[in-house]
């Protein structure tokens, strides 16, 4: 028994150390920093109470970054979810070439975000293929390209993000579809239900758990959008998101205290959303 205790601890120790040093300590330390005026090149720092938080809520740069983050989340998730579901429905039944299509649709979502963002930087720029395409169908794109305009920069990044991530959520929907028993459809057919009836009475309700799961993980991920903004716009043209703001104040202007406070505000927003959505999951008795 004693030996087993020792071995248990020994084997668990890599996590115990990693958790304490690289997760718990930084997490608490940055919470503390959020209440200080810690900056680089300042020999001492002081406890400033809620000052950072108060200042953040009147800092238009921060508020804009929050606004952009919400636009990003609300503007991408419905499209990503619906398109992913459509792709999954198209590929649900077995037919020749199914695996090829599935792999191709999924491919962008395991490719490096940096690479995808670089490719689209070119495609969106003046003279790039997407620019020319928009021009050809008469959309009159902004003069200097999609990423260099206040009106289109953020939306262009969002469109790319939808394109990139639908394949991943398609796979989750496909797994969800697979778990629906075939007998339900057979019974519905016997009762004379058509394709639409089957979709709305069987498929959609039974996909609810996986759909909610997709929305939850996509929300949490989308609130933290950073890489594509960094590569494509550097936060210019009204496209800076909350994490971009945290990066810039923290690691470019080195205002560690202020940036930590901003990070905790975003943390709380994400926490509220994930709790609310998990609550929803439980309430519907789907867990």
């Amino acid at each position, binding site marked *: 028994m004693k*030996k*087993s*205790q020792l071995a*248990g*601890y020994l*084997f*668990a120790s*890599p*996590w*115990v150390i*990693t*958790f304490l040093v*690289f*997760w*718990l300590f*930084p*997490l608490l330390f*940055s919470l503390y*920093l959020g209440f200080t005026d810690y900056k680089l090149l300042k020999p001492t720092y002081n406890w400033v109470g809620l000052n950072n938080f108060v200042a953040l809520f009147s800092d238009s740069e921060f508020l804009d970054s929050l606004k952009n983050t919400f636009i990003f989340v609300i503007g991408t998730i419905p499209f990503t979810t619906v398109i992913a579901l459509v792709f999954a429905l198209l590929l649900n039944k077995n037919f020749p*070439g199914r695996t090829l*299509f599935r*792999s191709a*649709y999924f*491919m*962008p979502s*395991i*490719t*490096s*975000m*940096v*690479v995808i*963002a*670089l*490719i689209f*930087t*070119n495609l969106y720029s003046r003279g*790039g*293929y997407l620019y020319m395409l928009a021009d050809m169908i008469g959309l009159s794109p902004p003069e200097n390209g999609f990423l260099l305009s206040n009106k289109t920069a953020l939306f262009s990044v969002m469109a790319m993000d939808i*394109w990139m991530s639908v394949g991943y959520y398609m*796979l*989750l929907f*496909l*797994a969800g579809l697979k778990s629906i028993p075939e007998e339900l459809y057979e019974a519905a057919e016997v009762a004379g239900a058509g394709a639409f009836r089957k979709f709305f009475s069987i498929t959609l309700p039974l996909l609810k758990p996986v759909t909610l*799961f*997709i929305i939850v993980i996509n929300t949490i991920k989308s609130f*933290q959008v*950073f890489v594509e903004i*960094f*590569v494509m716009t550097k936060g210019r043209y009204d496209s800076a998101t909350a*994490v971009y703001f*945290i*990066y810039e104040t*923290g*690691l470019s202007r080195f205002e*560690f205290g202020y*940036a*930590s406070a901003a*990070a*905790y505000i*975003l943390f709380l927003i994400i926490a509220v959303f994930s709790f609310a959505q998990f609550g929803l999951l439980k309430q519907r008795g789907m867990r």
Partner: protein
Amino acid sequence: MRILKYTILVLILIVMIFPLLWMFRVSLMPGASGLGFGDFVSPAITVLIYYDIFSSGNMLKYFINSSIVGVAVTGGNILFCFMVGYALSRYRFIGRNLWFYSVIFVLMIPVHIMIIPLYLLIYKLGLYDTYAALILPFLVNPIGIFLIKQYIDTLPSSMEEAARIDGAGEFRVLFRIVMPLCKPALAVLAIQVFLTNWNSFLFPFILTSSESVRTLPVGLALYQGHQAIDWPHLMAGSSLAVIPVLVIFLLFQRHIISGITAGAIKQ
């Protein structure tokens, strides 16, 4: 009806793979200037740019750095996630539940919160801008532990007990008896960890500053900083980042997909 379905599927296919085809095409462009449609379909191809990035500049260095970090982190995760997952599944030591909850807790933490404190911690530890900064914090991950623990929970423990009765020590049981049984789960884990690490940008970006330890995604993202972007070179470097992923994907597609869907169904 059937023709219509295939037409739709092929159109989507084109939309989904065109950007990557474009990347490969541009990386093989003979002239750095022309990126018009004519150039895209023209048969003129050169691998000179690849020769160029392998013989000069930093792309090759970034590629090697990414490989070193990727292999080290993947190796660490195979070993440590396995050990920890086993401990949490089989041993009844004091605080076991607490450590299991800590895994779930970290699983739910949004990583953006770590940007500032991890940067400061790595700096204070004197690890800033070293390989260690890119490896040490990532040697074991909560998703991996969770995956392995769930897997070991489903295995019968009779073989381990039999081995103990035969006098085998704990290490022997762990590595000789249990580890071979966990091969399928460890394969899924290894592939996921490697791909995630290979593509990761945020932490390698904030924890390093010099070209000598920079990984490929960071090198590519900062390459843009030069005045006029040399697209053929940049896309050749991007291809270096994509080709290993493509190869792994083609070889281990089943593992990748089962890893992704297992996570979703569990929820």
